[in-house]
């Protein structure tokens, strides 16, 4: 049986004891707050015993696949192991009990960590200055584009366009739009790389930024990046590096060294933040020094005496994209991870991420053709077009069938430039046996009865849901079957 909803388990009057009686003088509430502001009754939240709550969420959790329980080769999401040592440290009061408006003298330990993280992210990026404020990758993209806009505004240049490859994540054009730019799409060429001709054709004086994901979403490093950067810079435009795929190149190549002017990180992907069913993430951005004045404030700065302060004195700053310092908890875990790796270790992370992806690709590409590239970086994109054509088995069917073998599905139908795409990213934390088992499962699926695949998954708590119905007549909240009399 599927678990009941909290609201269905609720019984009037059930509760547990968590708050004490008042110890201050007992004044009628209405004398403190006029009744015009008071609700007539408490909200209609569910009423449960503590055991109800524990059992509910314990059982709910087991309906999920997760890294802790399953191989999760979801392309572009870098589902690597989330070290428990980081969680133990993040649970210390020295982090969780710190208020964002404490005075700086009570925050020196934490500011030291955050300053250090700024320095490290700048070094890994090959760029100069880092702001840790953005709350997620997409907000980092936006913040960086706002920085670019401020930069051009400050220079008196009116540039209206942001160029974006057709293989890019949807956040790129959405962020460009939100930053007030027009998003212009650049085609990919036959190799899955930026179509230079199309790029040059669209690179005009209105171009402010080119947003490049490199390695790109088909798992290839675009070697044209240097030339692209030069073309941009010659036109006074900026190269933005989408850091989604940083897990492929840590310590191997730095965005700044290939000509990028600004970039964002996804620390929850690259540096092992737990994904929590959809978040939280963080989206620090790194920029070249001439863009630094526009970064969101504050940054952490070091005083001459070795203490740390928050630097709010940035008159050209774009302002803020979120309240308070940033997603400190996520940043802290990234810092723990980086400190666990060191320079050699970070490099090794990418080596093994790329090794695992290539090894896996070598085990399956005969049955699951990879349209772009002989080799790959940290992920690769197979196409099920042949299977769809010949046997009526679509990428989604394959993904669903993997679930029956306790493996999470790859990303399907992305990037858009590969039809019937299966985007597979194993990450460096998986073992060879896990990869081989995955390959074997995938190969077995290639010859399974299509009917079985269309019905898959068959071992899960539910079978395929009716998504059309969900969108057509949305039911977005629980409501009681009958109103109480």
């Amino acid at each position, binding site marked *: 049986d599927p678990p009941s909803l*909290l609201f269905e388990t609720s019984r009037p009057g059930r509760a547990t004891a968590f708050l004490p009686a008042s110890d201050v003088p007992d004044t009628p509430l209405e004398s403190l707050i006029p009744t015009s502001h008071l609700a007539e009754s408490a909200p209609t939240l569910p009423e449960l015993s503590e055991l109800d709550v524990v059992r509910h969420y314990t059982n709910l959790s087991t309906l999920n696949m997760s890294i802790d329980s399953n191989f999760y080769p979801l392309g572009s999401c870098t589902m690597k192991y989330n070290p428990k040592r980081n969680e133990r440290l993040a649970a210390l009061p020295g982090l969780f009990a710190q208020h964002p408006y404490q005075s700086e003298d009570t925050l020196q330990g934490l500011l030291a960590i955050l300053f250090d993280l700024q320095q490290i992210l700048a070094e890994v990026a090959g760029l100069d200055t880092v702001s840790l404020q953005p709350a997620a990758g997409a907000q980092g993209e936006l913040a960086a584009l706002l920085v670019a806009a401020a930069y051009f505004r400050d220079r008196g240049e009116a540039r209206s366009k942001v160029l974006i490859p057709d293989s890019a994540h949807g956040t790129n054009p959405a962020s460009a739009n939100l930053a007030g730019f027009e998003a212009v799409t650049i085609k990919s060429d036959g190799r899955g790389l930026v179509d230079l001709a199309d790029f040059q054709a669209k690179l005009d004086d209105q171009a402010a930024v080119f947003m490049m994901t490199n390695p790109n979403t088909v798992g290839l490093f675009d070697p044209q990046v240097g030339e692209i950067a030069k073309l941009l810079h010659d036109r006074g435009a900026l190269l933005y590096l989408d850091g989604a795929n940083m897990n492929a190149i840590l310590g191997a190549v730095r965005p700044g060294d290939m000509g990028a002017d600004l970039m964002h990180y996804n620390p929850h992907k690259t540096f092992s933040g737990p994904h929590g069913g959809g978040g939280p993430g963080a989206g620090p951005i790194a920029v070249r020094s001439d863009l630094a004045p526009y970064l969101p404030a504050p940054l952490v700065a070091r005083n001459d005496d070795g203490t740390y302060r928050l630097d709010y004195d940035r008159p050209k700053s774009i302002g803020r994209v979120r309240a308070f310092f940033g997603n400190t908890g996520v940043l802290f875990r990234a810092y723990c991870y980086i400190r666990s790796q060191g320079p050699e270790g970070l490099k090794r992370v990418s080596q093994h991420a790329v090794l695992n992806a290539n090894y896996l690709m070598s085990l399956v590409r005969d049955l699951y053709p990879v349209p772009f590239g002989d080799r790959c970086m940290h992920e690769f994109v197979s196409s099920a077009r042949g299977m769809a054509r010949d046997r009526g088995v679509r990428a989604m069917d394959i993904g669903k069938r993997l679930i029956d073998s306790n493996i999470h599905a790859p990303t399907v139908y992305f990037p858009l430039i590969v039809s019937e795409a299966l985007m597979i990213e194993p990450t460096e934390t998986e073992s060879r046996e896990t990869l081989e088992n995955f390959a074997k499962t995938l190969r077995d699926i290639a010859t399974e009865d299509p009917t079985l695949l269309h019905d898959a998954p068959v071992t899960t708590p539910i079978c395929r849901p009716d998504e059309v119905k969900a969108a057509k007549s949305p039911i977005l909240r629980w409501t009681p079957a009958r109103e109480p009399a």
Partner: protein
Amino acid sequence: MAFIANTPDDVRVMLAAIGLDSLDQLFDMIPPEYRLQRPLEIPEALCELELTTRLGSLLDQNEGADKRVCFLGGGSYDHFIPAVVDNLSARGEFYTAYTPYQPEASQGTLQATFEYQTLVTQLTGMDVSNASLYDGGSAVTEAVLMALTVSQRHGRVVIAGSVHPEYRQILATYLANLDPELVTVPTPGGRLQVEDLDQAVNEQTAAVVIQYPNFFGQLEEIEAIVERVHAKGALAIVSVDPISLGLLRRPDTYGADIVVAEGQGLGNPMAYGGPYLGMMACREAYVRKMPGRIVGQTTDRNGKRCWVLTLQTREQHIRREKATSNICTNQGLLALRSSIYLAAVGPSGLRKAAELSTRKAHYAAEQLAQVAGLSVAFDGPFFKEFVIRSEKDPVRILEHVGRLGYHGGIALGRWDSHLKDKILIAVTEKRTKAEIDGLVSAYAKAIEAV
């Protein structure tokens, strides 16, 4: 090797299968001129024991609510977090799952999110909720962007000066390159005056943003304000404190169109500012303009009730530049924590948290007002937060109070020099009478000493 499973043997076998001789060759797609020819200049690796010791002792240098009695608020509060919240949200299956793209493998997250959405509607009285946004501050801006689309007015956005100054900054940042003009209505008396609002809102105004209780803890004349906003054809966006909803009127009862909130207080640690939880709820009619992920109920092929991500055509991964928002990541784990919190405390617990906070804040205000040199700054009703005026420099007063073991409040001059004689003080249900009395005495000493 931290967290890497491949042994030297594995590497040999795998490279051979790929047809390579070395790990380095894996990167030969990258032109050599870009390759980094030196090790990264970052600190050397730490094993778990060293990491635990060193970072543990760095963190131990901080002196937060664990080491001083905390009366800081301003959008982040030291509310009590029941142990079940930490325990259940830490389960690996919640913690290390991704966005529930594959519903068959993600019913745990999906049902928990559907429940979260329901809880938000129960709290706010609104029709629908999304699955969460980044934080309360950016949620205000997302609500404004949404209101622009809903209202089809792009001329002006009005915000009360009594909204959190950082929330106002975010909105300004986002609107800097867009069409609407941002008008802030000053609130020198601590609350928005309906007349001032009337002047600011014109026929091109998409929305008015109000905070209730506002940044100063004051309760705006919310019903009158919303009425005026609607009279001008604009949308009323109200930013609330979810704990206050245990006591104060639900936003549906005064006509809010979009409700946003910072959900930190609902079971999430202060954690130096994040990650937090942006909550958003609105009228049903606007749901297809709402940013962020949404979970919906449906049935599987066997007719079994289940949950899926829905209305995804609003989102950037489908709509790209035409998306209602660029938001991708949500705050799933914090939404989960808040759901567990609300489920654990229930309606009576939430009411008690709100009531105790109110009572204790009022006791604190009353006692502080009796300290020579301090007075309560604004005369409107307030919830758990209030502003005091100090005859002596708040920054120095607070330093002194700090040395006596109290995070005594926030000097408001940091955001606005007009407020440089004022201190914002928050009191939650965790504070005891003894702690409040201690604070009062610390202030008295500080006034004398400074």
